[in-house]
């Protein structure tokens, strides 16, 4: 499948080794394409077409519409609403923290996951446990809910969710508990939605603003 490289790659095409530069379009196997899209080193042309998430039923909620609009300036049709806190507005909403350096090519994939799952969220970091994170008081509060802090956390800068009863409960609890990753963990544990954990490459492990 055809992909556009975001980073230069040394690769083999039809048995011939080539160096492809950032911005080049190359035709590679689907597995390679999905790997490179997942790790942020490539994007797919169809992902740049946002028409399938620009209808009435889906959109982006964010804390800074102006900033996020700039980051998605090439996609004029996608609805973006500014909210003071994570909110489910459409049937399918992507909550995006404006501090996140968004990878727009992943948005259609994330919305598509809601065909199967109620919520899809990247993991924060495979090596950072709830045990390692936040203030002692909140950790203790979290342990009372999730029972064991040696568990993984979700990077709540990017949350895809359906607008259904359980997801609204999650968002209500998350906001009520003050936001942040430990609060999200408590909300998820309490409500128990069908949640899909995405690889942490979806948010590229950039510095968190939690």
């Amino acid at each position: 499948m055809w992909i556009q490289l975001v980073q230069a790659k040394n690769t083999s095409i039809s048995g011939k080794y080539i160096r492809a530069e950032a911005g080049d379009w190359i035709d590679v196997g689907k597995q390679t394409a999905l790997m490179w899209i997942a790790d942020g080193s490539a994007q797919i042309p169809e992902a740049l077409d946002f028409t399938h998430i620009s209808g009435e039923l889906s959109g982006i909620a964010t804390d800074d519409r102006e900033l996020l609009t700039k980051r998605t300036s090439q996609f004029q049709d996608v609805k973006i609403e500014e909210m003071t806190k994570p909110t489910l507005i459409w049937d399918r909403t992507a909550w995006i923290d404006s501090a996140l350096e968004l990878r727009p090519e992943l948005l259609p994939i994330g919305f598509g996951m809601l065909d199967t799952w109620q919520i899809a969220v990247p993991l924060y970091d495979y090596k950072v446990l709830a045990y390692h994170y936040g203030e002692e008081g909140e950790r203790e509060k979290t342990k009372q809910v999730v029972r064991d802090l040696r568990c993984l956390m979700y990077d709540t800068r990017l949350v895809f969710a359906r607008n259904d009863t359980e997801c609204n409960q999650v968002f209500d609890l998350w906001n009520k508990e003050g936001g942040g990753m430990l609060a999200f963990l408590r909300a998820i544990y309490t409500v128990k939605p069908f949640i899909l954990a995405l690889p942490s490459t979806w948010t590229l492990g950039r510095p968190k603003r939690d």
Partner: protein
Amino acid sequence: MTKAIVWVVYGDKAAEACKRSRESVSFWNSDPQQVVTQDIGAVSNKIASRHSKTTLLKRTEADSLLYLDADTLIRQAIDVGFEILADGWDVVMVPSSNQEQDIFWHIAEIERNQTMHELGYAPLQLQCGVMFIARNARTVKFFDAWHDEWMRYCDEDQAAFLRALKRVPLRVWLLGYPWNGGAIIEHRFGACRES
């Protein structure tokens, strides 16, 4: 609510490792133990073990299970995994340490490619060697799907697990690395593999 710790064991190496694994569990936990090892007429121990693992709910009776690979050793208390199941989660497990470029490294290319094609994205790989499992209608249906998916290639079980999860989503609680390959459950990955 009945509980059990379960291993699937085929072959001498696995049997020897399982003995050590069971001893390590006994130090920390008094729940019943069960070793699935019945002859299913498979052509290899690997095929037999994956076949039995993906039909585990048919081979056990407990309401809550902890499935352990034979090459695991318990180093701390594990009861909290069962408590998380009792709270309403279907499965409690840990992501694989092989992610991104290493995803599905042990899966044959044809199955790897087909899995990526069917999922439509590069997924989070889950490690199926340590799993707390609640028996309910959803997980029974999931295991049927897992076995179906495994039967397509009759090889490793992890890619089949993710394809099955797309067919039958579960409530999955993710623990961290101490629970599979760390301080709580040591995992000597590959120690039972036969050359």
